[in-house]
């Protein structure tokens, strides 16, 4: 059983395209990333640990991860709702709303940042109504959550939409004919079917939110220990020429990024296997008795 790197194919250009791909990838991504770990390794372990567990750092993790988790959760609930409404119902202006869902992908983060701050500051379009109730949105943790909800909005919607669209209406009809009420059909048949996709979207929203900078840094107020997000902490350290410190925190963020990436890939694989409708003869799973 010889090991061959590549399956035989008559198509040309493999060497060239793969070579270029790997070269470009290494130059732009891999080498610079390794430089980070290299630099971080100039610190010994106790030093590294001291930096990444400093109170200010911990406070920033709490904020970044905590707010990201809450924002991702909000996006899970509302994202499912929006996806459902866009796929199942029709109403005037639906196409416009559908296109707008991608706005957070297309709009530069700095623009989003100042826009959100303008809305939620005490004289802002929404902020002015919340002010009398003592609810401070801009320059508070709540503001961070709102900004992160904005950035993560498209993820759940866009991962769930195609799955919802592909769902066989016959499954719902079957459930109804078997006596299930509408709510039972939704919770027992539909939601489990779209859960892998929804969770994938949730994880993507969370991963994006943790590293988010531009949308948040204007509305947060950036008070150390209170409303300072982790990316900002990195920049602050850089401005103080504390390269080692900045790198250490960056390593923490990179590790989190890689773990998120892995989780997303696994979730996507799970989602794909769930949606498979091929019979065992096609998927190569063991063929069990005939007919």
């Amino acid at each position, binding site marked *: 059983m010889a090991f061959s790197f*590549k399956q035989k194919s008559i*198509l040309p250009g493999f060497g060239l395209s793969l070579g270029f791909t790997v070269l470009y990838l290494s130059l732009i991504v891999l080498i610079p990333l390794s430089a980070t770990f290299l630099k971080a390794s100039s610190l010994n372990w106790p030093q590294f640990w001291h930096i990444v567990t400093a109170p200010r750092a911990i406070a920033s993790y709490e904020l970044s991860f905590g707010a990201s988790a809450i924002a991702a959760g909000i996006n899970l609930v509302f994202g499912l709702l929006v996806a459902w409404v866009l796929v199942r*119902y029709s109403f005037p202006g639906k196409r416009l709303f559908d296109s707008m869902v991608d706005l957070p992908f297309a*709009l530069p983060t*700095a623009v989003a940042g100042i*826009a959100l701050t303008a809305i939620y500051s005490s004289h802002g379009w929404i902020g002015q109504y919340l002010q009398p109730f003592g609810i401070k949105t801009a320059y508070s943790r709540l503001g961070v959550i709102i900004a992160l909800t904005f950035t993560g909005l498209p993820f759940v919607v866009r991962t769930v939409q195609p799955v919802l669209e592909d769902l066989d209406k016959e499954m719902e009809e079957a459930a109804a004919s078997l006596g299930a009420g509408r709510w039972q059909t939704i919770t027992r048949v539909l939601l489990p079917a779209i859960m892998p996709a929804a969770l994938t979207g949730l994880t993507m929203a969370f991963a994006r939110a943790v*590293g988010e900078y531009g949308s948040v840094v204007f509305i947060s107020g950036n008070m150390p220990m209170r409303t300072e997000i982790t990316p900002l902490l990195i920049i602050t350290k850089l401005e103080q020429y504390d390269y080692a410190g900045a790198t250490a925190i960056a390593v923490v963020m990179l590790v989190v990024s890689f773990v998120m990436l892995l989780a997303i890939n696994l979730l996507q694989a799970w989602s794909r296997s769930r949606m498979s409708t091929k019979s065992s003869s096609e998927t190569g799973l063991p063929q069990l008795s005939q007919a």
Partner: protein
Amino acid sequence: MATTFTLRGFGFARSAKTEPVTTEKPLVRWSLIAVAVLFLGVFLFMPLAVVFASALAKGFSVYISALREPDALAAIKLTLLAAGIAVPMNLIFGVAAAWAIGKFEFFGKSFLVTLIDLPFSVSPVVSGLIYVLIFGLQGVLGPWFAAHDIKIIFAVPGIVLATVFVTFPFVARELIPLVQAQGNEEEEAALSLGANGWRTFFRVTLPNIKWGLLYGVILCNARAMGEFGAVSVVSGHIRGRTNTMPLHIEILYNEYRFAPAFAVASLLALLALVTLVVKSVVEGKSEEHEAELRVERIPEPIVVGPEVNAA
């Protein structure tokens, strides 16, 4: 469509008991629609509206003069330059990667795809930091560049590099699944008819992926022009020299010059809207394209039935 259909759609023509089983009662439907619309309205439409409202708050002349300031113009130029370099580079990469990954089976393929996705999952600030760590004065290659008086960090090249990094996967991510889904049949047919690799690529592969390609380029460009965090780290914030549009907006904002800040922001917001429109058009076109291809590929269903011997 006959009236029966539209009325059914709004759920008014029937009693609750005769609703199709796969939908909810009208009250439930409209409540859900209302909540969804409200949510999207507050989170999406409002921020967009406030950009334009605030930009024009002090009047049109202030708006225009903000855009004509030398620093603003320099920022616009730099933004266009960075995008103008990053997008084509990542386009070529995306195509090469799509060919290698989409058309061939090899060991380590999914690992490679994961690696390509890396920049997507890295925080923008970290993306900028890693270049500082290489090219900065204290960086790995820093001293070499300093000795040759080549400035990367705190200069334009650094900005371009950081932009290339953050927009790295966009085109590839669009094209790889597309190329994979299309299979090798057409290319193999072209080769068997005597075309060489390049010919095959330009005449067979490229037309099939043109919409995905356009879409990837649009997204790549939007991100390239709007990147903030990464560029913020590598640029040094030198006014008029190393400021892109997002950085210029930050400076204006921090100086409480809100109307000019939003004026520049409005340009980027317009770009975002154009991006969304093009995306919409491209999606429509690619669906048409897919539908055409599908019609050609599905064989006629075999009709099972008696042979009729007609006179």
